[in-house]
């Protein structure tokens, strides 16, 4: 299939605005014309479309990654295995590795250590665990700036870290993907594993947020 190589969010999605065949170009133009006409006529607002797409992207994507995290929080032995051999841990939960089975390394946040993931070259992303990458993950500003000034970027995501925290930036590649194991949120001691899954957002698995109750509204940038 045409998108055979996009499965782990490699290069394809960066070029989605360059349809490769005439039929794809025709459809893209038709969709664009449709949106433009309906917006002009006041039937729909672009912001509503943005909000709905973001909502679906955020709600359903990172479920498999969240399951790994919830199990790791609940079972120290599983956590040890997840951190040393993520592939085996993923297999334990019968989660898919993804088509290309690119090795995944899970990096653990702890008091004083915060991890954040980027792909500086393109948009490599552990899609089998986190769903499709969010738009900002693929954006040149995020990819360039998070390496240079991670604290400033995290602050823009609403994440203020103490000066003493060691911020580690992990650069994904076609050969190796990273996922963050966020810290278990305070107050969640009595939560069941299923309840813990709910606390793990996509952003916390990328490292631009902490785990915790879901944010009020999806953020896209």
């Amino acid at each position, binding site marked *: 299939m045409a998108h055979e190589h996009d499965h782990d969010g490699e290069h394809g999605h960066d070029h989605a605005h360059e349809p490769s065949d005439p039929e794809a170009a025709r459809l*893209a133009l038709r969709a664009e014309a449709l949106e433009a006409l309906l917006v002009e006529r006041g039937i729909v607002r672009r912001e509503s*479309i943005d909000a709905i797409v973001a909502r*679906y992207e955020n709600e359903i994507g990172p479920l498999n990654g969240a399951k790994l995290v919830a199990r790791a929080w609940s079972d120290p032995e599983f956590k040890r295995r997840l951190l040393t051999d993520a592939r085996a841990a993923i297999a334990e939960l019968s989660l898919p590795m993804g088509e290309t089975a690119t090795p995944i390394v899970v990096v653990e946040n702890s008091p004083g250590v915060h991890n954040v993931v980027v792909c500086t070259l393109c948009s490599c992303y552990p899609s089998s665990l986190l769903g499709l990458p969010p738009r900002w993950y693929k954006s040149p500003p995020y990819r360039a700036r998070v390496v240079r000034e991670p604290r400033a970027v995290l602050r823009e995501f609403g994440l203020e870290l103490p000066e003493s925290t060691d911020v580690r930036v992990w650069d994904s590649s076609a050969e190796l993907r990273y996922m963050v194991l966020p810290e278990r949120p305070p107050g969640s001691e009595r939560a069941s594993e299923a309840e813990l899954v709910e606390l793990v957002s996509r952003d916390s698995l990328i490292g631009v947020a902490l785990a915790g109750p879901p944010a009020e509204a999806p953020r896209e940038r």
Partner: protein
Amino acid sequence: MSGDPLAALGTKAPPRKNGELHFDEAWESRVFGLTMSLHEAGAFAWGEFQAELIASIGAWERAHASEARSEAKPSEVEQWPRSGEGGSAGAGRAAPLPTSGAGFHYWAYWLEAFERLAARKGLLELAALDARAAELAARPAGWDHARV
């Protein structure tokens, strides 16, 4: 949203990967967002869109009844609701609709269904849509790089 309109589409629900809606191209997510937005605003009942989508996809299915199963790669696309976790091999899962290729492009049928419904509801005329698409096609090459 009341209930889950996507779940209501059953076997005609959008393709998913890792439980998430799967879009190959930016326009696909725009058309999806457009449809859901108008539905949520009360422009049409979900059943009306569903009927159009079933008509679009149904025509393709009848024409490709024998190929559809062999071409779908279960590990690549998933149905809603998810039929259990399953391994990457996806053994035993019903063959889902392929996302694209082999003459089938899910979101193209969604687009077609939405166009028909919008025209029927008097939101736009297909002639106006054709005209606008032609105008957009006439833009000089490279215009989108300046915008994106």
